[in-house]
């Protein structure tokens, strides 16, 4: 039998029994839509978390910090040793000092971080306004503030502070005094201009080109170094090597992997709940197929005496089950996506009313929808196996005489 004929023969139920066929499809659809909606919710939540993380350079960077014991310290020598490691593409240190920042006549304590242009990429720092500075000498007096720092000066719109002058004095240990002893405020020379504001609303800091900082203040050690490896499979080796030197290393990629793992678990759980609905629908469909089998018994007998092989009969039943399952999957997808979007829209309406930001609570990745399409056809197929087996093994004579 040709597959086009098999398809034609196995879609007759849309003509002979449209109501029952569509109800069966709808049943499968409701089950599938439960899965689509719940797993879509899982994907949505995952996206909400992960969309804050900048991918690419950030994921390929290790963050190296000093150990609490201070047995080893990050300094130019260690930074150079990191850079010399195999598969390490670049390193970008961060030197930080306590400082007082003055803007518009107001002064406040802040953390002054000296970094290079590349640090922004490797650390995944996102700007809420303006831009970060470059390593060019012309940008030597450009600085970046964190959103939290703006609040010190009562600035709410980050764009207002862009291009405004600020000045710094660095709190440096007094000359000849051991660390932890008395310290002096040393003003930094230069007219610094705010060029960017980061989206960090928690930490108060100002970022200044490392070259500018080191030209005015002696930098003995760094508090953080970003080590960029050339590819993700070298992350573990580089991490092990640096840990071997006594430093503390964390990788954003690990955090992301952990988050993803947790969300996979959440999705499996959600899919499990949806799966229960799907099983109920599949049982309903199985039941329909069994009734169809009884109804068609006579027809099966007739077909068998006309030269249909048991396999032909099996194919007819299986393709019918697959068609119903597949269409159920399609219907379910449409219902699930529509349901998710409607719920999301309603939640966002409520959120907007209370002044919250709009979020996309549901997400339906293409691969997932592709899988559901395939999976629903498989569910249909599995549901059809038993009736198809029975249909093909029934004796033609009994089938003809069955009324």
């Amino acid at each position, binding site marked *: *039998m*040709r597959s*086009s*004929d098999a398809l034609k*023969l196995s879609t*007759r139920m849309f*003509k*002979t029994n449209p109501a029952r066929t569509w109800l069966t499809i709808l049943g499968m659809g409701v089950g599938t839509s439960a899965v689509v909606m719940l797993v879509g919710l899982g994907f949505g939540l995952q996206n909400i978390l992960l969309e804050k993380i900048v991918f690419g350079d950030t994921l390929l960077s290790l963050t190296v910090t000093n150990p609490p014991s201070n047995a080893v310290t990050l300094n130019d020598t260690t930074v150079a040793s990191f850079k010399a490691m195999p598969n390490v593409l670049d390193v970008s240190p961060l030197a930080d000092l306590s400082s007082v920042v003055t803007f518009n006549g107001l002064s406040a304590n802040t953390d002054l971080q000296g970094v290079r242009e590349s640090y922004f990429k490797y650390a995944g720092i996102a700007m809420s306004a303006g831009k970060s500075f470059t390593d060019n000498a012309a940008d030597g007096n450009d600085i970046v503030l964190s959103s939290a720092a703006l609040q010190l000066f009562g600035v709410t719109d980050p764009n207002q502070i862009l291009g405004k002058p600020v000045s710094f004095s660095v709190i440096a240990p007094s000359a000849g005094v051991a660390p932890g002893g008395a310290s002096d405020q040393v003003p930094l020379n230069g007219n610094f201009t705010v060029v960017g504001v980061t989206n960090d609303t928690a930490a108060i800091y100002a970022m200044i080109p490392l070259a500018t900082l080191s030209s005015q203040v002696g930098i003995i050690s760094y508090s953080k170094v970003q080590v960029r490896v050339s590819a993700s499979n070298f992350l573990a080796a580089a991490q092990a090597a640096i840990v071997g030197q006594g430093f503390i290393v964390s990788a954003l990629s690990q955090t992301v992997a952990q988050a993803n793992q947790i969300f996979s678990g959440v999705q499996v759980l959600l899919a499990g709940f949806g799966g229960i609905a799907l099983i109920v629908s599949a049982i309903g469909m199985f039941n329909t197929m069994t009734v169809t089998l009884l109804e068609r018994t*006579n*027809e099966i007998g*007739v*077909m*068998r*005496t*006309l*030269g*249909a*092989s*048991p*396999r*032909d009969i099996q194919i007819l039943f299986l393709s019918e089950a697959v068609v119903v399952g597949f269409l159920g999957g399609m219907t379910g997808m449409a219902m699930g996506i529509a349901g998710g979007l409607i719920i999301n829209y309603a939640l966002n309406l409520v959120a907007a009313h209370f002044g919250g930001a709009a979020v996309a609570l549901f997400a339906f990745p293409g691969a997932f929808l592709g899988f559901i399409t395939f999976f629903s056809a498989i569910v249909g197929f599995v549901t059809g196996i038993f009736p198809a087996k029975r249909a093909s093994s029934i*004796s*033609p*004579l009994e089938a*003809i005489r069955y009324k």
Partner: protein
Amino acid sequence: MIEPIIRVKNLKIVYNEGQANEYYALRDESLEIYPNEYIILFGPSGCGKSTLLYSLLGILPPSSGEVLVKNENPYKYNVKDMVRFQRSVVGIIYQSFNLIPSLTVIDNVALPLIFAGIPKAERDRRAMVLLKRFGVDQQAYKLSTNLSGGQSQRVAVARSLVNDPEILFADEPVGNLDSLSSDQVMNTLEEINTKDKKTVILVTHDAKLLPYAHRVYYLRDGQVEREVINPEKVQIKQTDPGTSILSEIEKLARIYPYASAQELRVKSIVNYLTQDIGFDQVERLEKCVGMYIDGKFTDAGFVDMLTKKFDAGGPEIGGKDANLFSTRIDTILKEAREIRVYRDNFKARVASPRQADRIAEIRNDLMRECHFTLHPEQIPRMDELLKFRIRGFIQQEDMRRRLEANFENDGIGIGSDGAREVSRYLEKLLGQGMYL
């Protein structure tokens, strides 16, 4: 010597063997069917004829014995060979047509080709040729549920032929059809046998169909009771001269299809004892009488027909008898009409003085025909009795007893023989009147 296309050897089929409801559908059946033969398996329901058919079709395995089709045992086929057998060797039509209701007529016909994987254009072409041939091409694109019974069966015939099988099985193919459609389908099958040279094996309980066959197997209680060769057809199975002659018993079998050979012999003897004419003459006489009471002959024409020589196709009744037949039929029909009118009036509660006259006329006719007379005091009682019988208040047996009983005992008193004769004649009139 032609080889049989189907050979059945000691075939036994037992349903539910070994269980309490064990049933022997076929007991030790043996027969041979030759290529291009038209065979009828004939018998009452439950005789095993369909069981035999389905066993030959390859879907009812024998309990013991052997079925050979083209010298091969279909029950030894694997699935692939079985499918080939069903696709190219056998075709079947059913009493209930068994068309697939959800498919169009042309798809129904092409269904065997669909399973054989023939491309659509080719199978539609072949199906259309057959639909045209059987005059149902106008319905080709209708759903099969929209056909009449006769059309459905012709579509089913087309379906059974689309694979060009060698043997066509037909299970009571005209059992659900009116006589016109039935004739059409039977002529189609005949044509398939003679023109297409297919072996046709037909199962029926309808004796009307027997003349179509080369040979008829009479089945009863799971056994072939006898095999009858149709002398009107040129036989394919070769028999030595004299092995079978067409006797009166075979002719009788057509009239009494369900009678056993023993019963037919008895009928033959009783006919000889009680009637002056044989079954052949009776048959022709019946035809003439039929036409006469339909009003197709004048009295003279009827007598002419009756006296026609046997060789010329007439019943060859003597001239005197022929005249008598004519007048007696006239009388019977006339009195039957009186009875009919009387009953109609009675049922319609029409009170007419003519009703009493009708009874009197029937009474006088009875006296004339049965040669008896009544005293004046018997007449009112006789009329009363006739009224009761004609109205249906008393049965034939009551009537006879009252005719026989003495006048003192509320009877008429015309004696036992007279009572039987009068009662018999009156029943004839009644019967005619009822179906006039």
